[in-house]
Each structure stands twice: as C-alpha cells, then as structure tokens.
C-alpha cells in the first residue's frame, strides 16, 4: 500500500465519525435543508470533472465526458445551495 493510499484511508477514518457527529446535532427541524446542503456539497465532484476536462493531452472522449460532468455537477451545486438558502430564509422565530 502506498503512502498516498494510507493517508487517504486515515482521512476517511476520521471524516466518517466527524460527519456522524455533526449530523446528529442537526435539529430535525432542519433536516430538509441539511439534505439539500449536503447534496450541494457532494457535487464537489466538480473538482474531478475539471481535472478530467482540462487536463493536458486529454483525449476527445475524456474532454466530452469531463465537460458533461462539469455541467451536471454545477447544476447540482447551484440548485443545491440556492434552494437551501431559499428554505432557510423562511424559518423565523417569533411573530413580526
């Protein structure tokens, strides 16, 4: 196993319990915004898409696949963040 892989596994081992902890603290009141926010965050796969689409000496195939992936993940990012904010704006505590 390479050091790279080992490091990545350590990151995973730490990130999963951190995620479980963080999410368990979110009030059920906000579960829908939580889901749309994490949904937007998971579209960070746009990073991989950019690397594939813009790489030096990329073949036509990986350019096309990469660009479609960039479009798809950007849709996911933009709609995810915007709808989350739109929902959260509506949550207010007391009467005006």
């Amino acid at each position, binding site marked *: 196993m390479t050091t790279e892989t080992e490091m990545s596994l350590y990151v995973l081992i730490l990130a999963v319990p951190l995620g479980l902890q963080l999410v368990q603290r979110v009030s059920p009141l906000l579960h829908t915004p939580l*889901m749309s926010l994490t949904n937007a965050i998971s579209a960070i*796969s746009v990073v991989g898409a950019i690397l594939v*689409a813009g790489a030096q000496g990329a073949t036509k195939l*990986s350019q096309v696949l990469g660009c*479609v992936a960039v479009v798809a993940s950007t849709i*996911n990012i933009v709609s995810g963040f915007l709808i989350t904010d739109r929902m959260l704006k509506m949550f207010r505590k007391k009467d005006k």
Partner: protein
Amino acid sequence: MIEQIWQVAYIFAALSIIGSIKWLSSPATARQGVMAGQVGMLFAVVGTLLRAEVVDYQWILISIFIGAAIGAPLAYLMPMTAVPQLTALSHAFGALAAALVGTAEYYRQTPTGFTMTALVIETVLGYLTFTASIMAFGKLQEIVPTRPITYKGQNFVNIALLIFAVALGVWMIVEPAPSWVFPTFTGLSLLFGVLLIIPIGGGDMPTVIALLNSYAGAACAAMGFALSNRLLIIAGALNAASGFILSVIMCKAMNRSFLNVLFGAFGQVQEGASTAMSTKPVHSATAEDAAAIMAGARKIIVVPGYGMAVAQAQHKLRELTDALTKRGVEVRFAIHPVAGRMPGHMNVLLAEADIPYDKMHEMEEINPDFAEADVALVIGANDVVNPAARHDTASPIFGMPILDVDKAHTVMVIKRSMNPGFAGIDNELYYMDRTLMLFGDAKSFVSDIVKELPAT
C-alpha cells in the same frame, strides 16, 4: 510556491465545508452555514482551476456557465412542495458527474489495484444513483406510477444482477484492460438503479431519498480515493454519513428495516386488516361547532400531514393560528418524522406559510403534552395518528411510533371522506367518542373555521 496554492485552497475548502454543516445545526446560524458551504465550494473550484494539470479553461468555463444557467432557475421556480423532487434530480446530476469522471479516468489511465477498486466503486455507485434518482424523481413527480411495481422473482433478479455487476467489477480490478467488460458493467449499474426503485412505494420515498444522498456521498469519497484527492474524501464522507443517519431516522419512524424498505414493497393493498370497522358510526361536526370548541380551548395541538400540503391549506392554517393566538389560545404543531415527502419537509412547508419554527415540535418532545391538550386537530395525516400502531399486532403499521393524538380531550380530523388513506388501513381514531370528523376540503374547511370564530 505558486504551484502549491491549490493545496492551501483545498484546506480552506475542507474547513469551510465542515463549518457549514456545524452551523446548520441551529436555525440561528444556518444561513451562515450555507454561506460557508458556498465559500468552500468556491475555494475548491478556484483551487482546482489553478492546478498546473489544468491547461484548458475555455470549455470548463462554458460548462460551468451552462450548469449555473440550468441550476439557478430550477432552485427558484420549484414550489416548496416539490423540494423532494428537486433534491432527487440534484442527486441524479451529482451522481452522473461522479460516474462520468470515473469512466473518463478509466479510459485515460486504465489503472490497477487500489485505484481501480476505488474507480469501480465510484462508477457503480454513480451510475446506479443516477438512474435510481431519476426514478425517484419520476415517482415523486408522479410521472412514474407511485405504487410499487412487483413481479414474481423480482428480488432474485435484482440480487442476481447485482452479483453479476460486482463480479464484473472484480474482474476489471484483476484484469483492467479496456474491453466489453466496462460498458457492460456501466449498463448493469444503470439498470440496477432503475430496478432498485421500481418496487418501492411512494410512501417510502423519504427513506429512499436519504439513502440516495448517502450513495452520492460515497461515490464522491470513492472518487477521492481514485484521484488521491482528500478534499473529495472529506466532503463525500460527510455527505454519506448525513444521508445514512437520515435514512436510519426515517426507517425508525416507520418501524422498518433497510431491507424491508428496499425489498418489502410496502404500500400495496393490504388484505384483511382494514375493512372490518368501516360500518361503525362516526361523529361529524360543522365548521361552526369546531370554531366554538377551539375558541373555548386553552391548548391546541395541530397535526399536519402531507394531505395538508396537497390541499395547500398551510396559509389558511396560519390565519387560524393567528386568530386563535390573539384570543390567548396556545397553538402548537406536532410533526411526525415522516410527515411530508422527505425528512423535515413539513417544517419547510409550515415555515413557508410564516409559522414560527419555535411552534413546531418533534414527536418525542410533544407526545406527553397531548393528554393536556384541549383539542388535537389532525389535517391530512392518517397512519401517523392511528392508535392501532400501539396495540393491534395484526395491523401492518404495528410498532410504528405515532403521535398520541387520541389522548387529547377532543380530537378533530379534517378529511375529505371516510376512504382509508394511502396504505389502505382503517383508523380507529375516527370512531372514538371524543373524535369529531370534519368532512371537507382542508383549505376551505380551515378558512370556514376562521370565519366562524365568535367575535372577541
């Protein structure tokens, strides 16, 4: 130094993303959380564009522009009742992106060993989440029939298909040369996603969406391993954990196991358990009667279900709440975890109608208070208030946690008719002596109650 700037950007991106979920824990800081998430994403994208490997910008920027041009109107035009559909659609796009990146990477470097294993996991999860999310979107939007579609030997076919796909995956890890194997593997993953959702009923969609959320995160984390990109691993792991917890909560709220949701085909016509009681008499009441009782009450608990949202009664409900609060009546809302079409959906629908969130209460929190409530008003909810879940071992919903509406002094149920609900289970609550059935459309009935409230 300048070549390494992307690494700094990634570290800031990871911090922002962790902070964003942390801030989401309370409504007071939640919007700050969204802001942090956006900043994190910006760091990630800009950092990636600055990497030396990326040389071709033109098409990437055009693609980002196209994506934003499609994504923004989606988010602004969807009504709040359609948030579950939008989320499913978003999952589909995100998962497709992960799968395509996996495919491109496979053909670019034909990796081996560990990287290939990660790539196989990324691709299978990506493609199956893509089609499964499209199917879930179809069921929520009611383009695809919402009832479970089942046939003989279905589970056998699904499991055989999955085993075949996994076998192909293992083969590619051992022998990664490009051949017919990868396209077949892709096809099987896509097909499996469709078959996975077909037997699942509309009522189970909250669990399914949460599960797909988890898969999308896992695909993203797998991509992180394939590309040795730790930012992707962190973001993917957070997302996978979140989806997993939410689906566990949903399963608990329905007293069912994962396997039961995925293979149980709930929501089919239930035989036997239902029709026995339906000839019993019920007490019905008019809006005037209901208004008189409510005006004299001290504490009222409203139990909204998805039927309320379908009837678009939430704004009228807000008027009723205001009118009663002005008279000194305490009005609160009891929200079952599966009220609505995704976790927490009902809270969003009520918030949209301007109902303050400190009046919305979770099931465990408010259940002890029903005994002291003068009126429990049930609107568009059925199974989640059925006392049979507590004592009738023959009932299909036995063991499901419910809101203890039947303990209230007076129970009022707004309902179109005596037809049993979605799951086809009769509800003994309707036949109690303390229950008043208010027959009619939820929106117009609530508005009639508001009109009939005696002047102060």
